[in-house]
């Protein structure tokens, strides 16, 4: 899965059309526990992948999330 593909997939899951790698998560109200759960569920359901909830919650930008998921995948 490429970074671009993953970003598109997460944006669709979160219904967040303007989501970019540079999007800051730590000051965006949309990045709440439900959004984090949505990502965890998507990764588990579609990729049998379990990423660290703590690291996900500590991600400051969407780029950090992509790094975390791709590192877990590899």
């Amino acid at each position, binding site marked *: 899965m490429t970074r671009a593909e993953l970003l598109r997939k997460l944006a669709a899951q979160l219904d967040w059309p303007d989501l970019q790698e540079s999007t800051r998560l730590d000051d965006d109200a949309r990045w709440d*526990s439900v959004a984090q759960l949505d990502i*965890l569920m998507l990764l*588990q*359901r579609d990729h049998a992948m*379990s990423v660290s*909830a703590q690291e996900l919650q500590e991600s400051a930008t969407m780029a950090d999330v992509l790094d975390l998921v791709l590192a877990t995948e590899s």
Partner: protein
Amino acid sequence: MRTAVIQGIDHYLPEERLTNAELSALYPGWTADKILEKTGILERRIAADTERVTGAISGGGGPNSSWAIASGNWAGRAAAAFAVRIGARIADGGIDLLVFCTQSPDHFLPTTACLIQERLGLGTNVAAFDYNLGCSAFPYGLAIVRGLIDAGIASTALLLMADTYSKFIHPLDKSVRTLFGDAASAVLITAEERAAPSIGPFVLGTDGTGAGNLIVPAGAMRHPLATADLAEKTDKSDNTRTAANLFMNGPAIFEFTVKRVPALIRDVVAAAEISLDDVDLVILHQASEMLLATLQGSLRIPDEKFVRHYSRCGNTVSSTIPIALQSVIDAGRVARGDVLLVAGFGVGYSWGANLIRWEPNA
């Protein structure tokens, strides 16, 4: 061989309903449809201000009298027969073990089971005690009761579970208020002769590193309640709570569950030397739609074997599995001799699973 056999199950839900429409009015950006999509829950049942778990189990008059074994006011088609059976056992002094699970006791002390013994009018020969677990309550309770019955220490047991998490929940914390409901449940278990154990094998486990992820931080001895603990704080997800309220780190609970539960299920069927295909119904702790859908997919359990029962009561913590089990019994989905797999997991972290061969007395 002498072994413990489940004879009947029933539960009680309080009258008050908390709907998604009511919740969506409190939480900006959350529609009733979104709450339903994320949780799978249409409404939760909430204990009234005056209702406590002792009332839920035993009635006893006053504002608690509608929550009762004593009054026979239990839910489900089996309620009348169950109440008669329990009532007969109480009347003839036959119940010699009362095991009660709650995380919302009437008092720190005395043990709530002692209050229930008095309210139910059980004999003073009864062994009665509480244990404190949440979502793993049912398999742990069955393990305790089976151990005492198979060892010849008890012969007729009431396994009771009741929780009123709503009393810990801040009204403006949608992360927990959308999920949890209050309930009580009761299981009658007796010593019988069977060719093999009817309940078991068991797999039980614990990981206290997750304790802080589902917790009421203040109010007990480690952190006695102080005025400062009642200060409200709003987190980044726009959920408000105090230190005396329930806190849940949903993503961490999800991570724990999807890592732990599939292995738990594999371990319990391996312990029984069967495969998951040999199990007739799988009844997991009814946590939320997001969790159950993920677990069902991971375990590849077909819909006809996977029990869901939470849309009209929410996550009732210790009672979710008995309520779901009763629902499939009442619906005629359980035949004598069926093999049922039950698994509970959550607060603690604590988890447990076991098999039940459904073979009550005729």
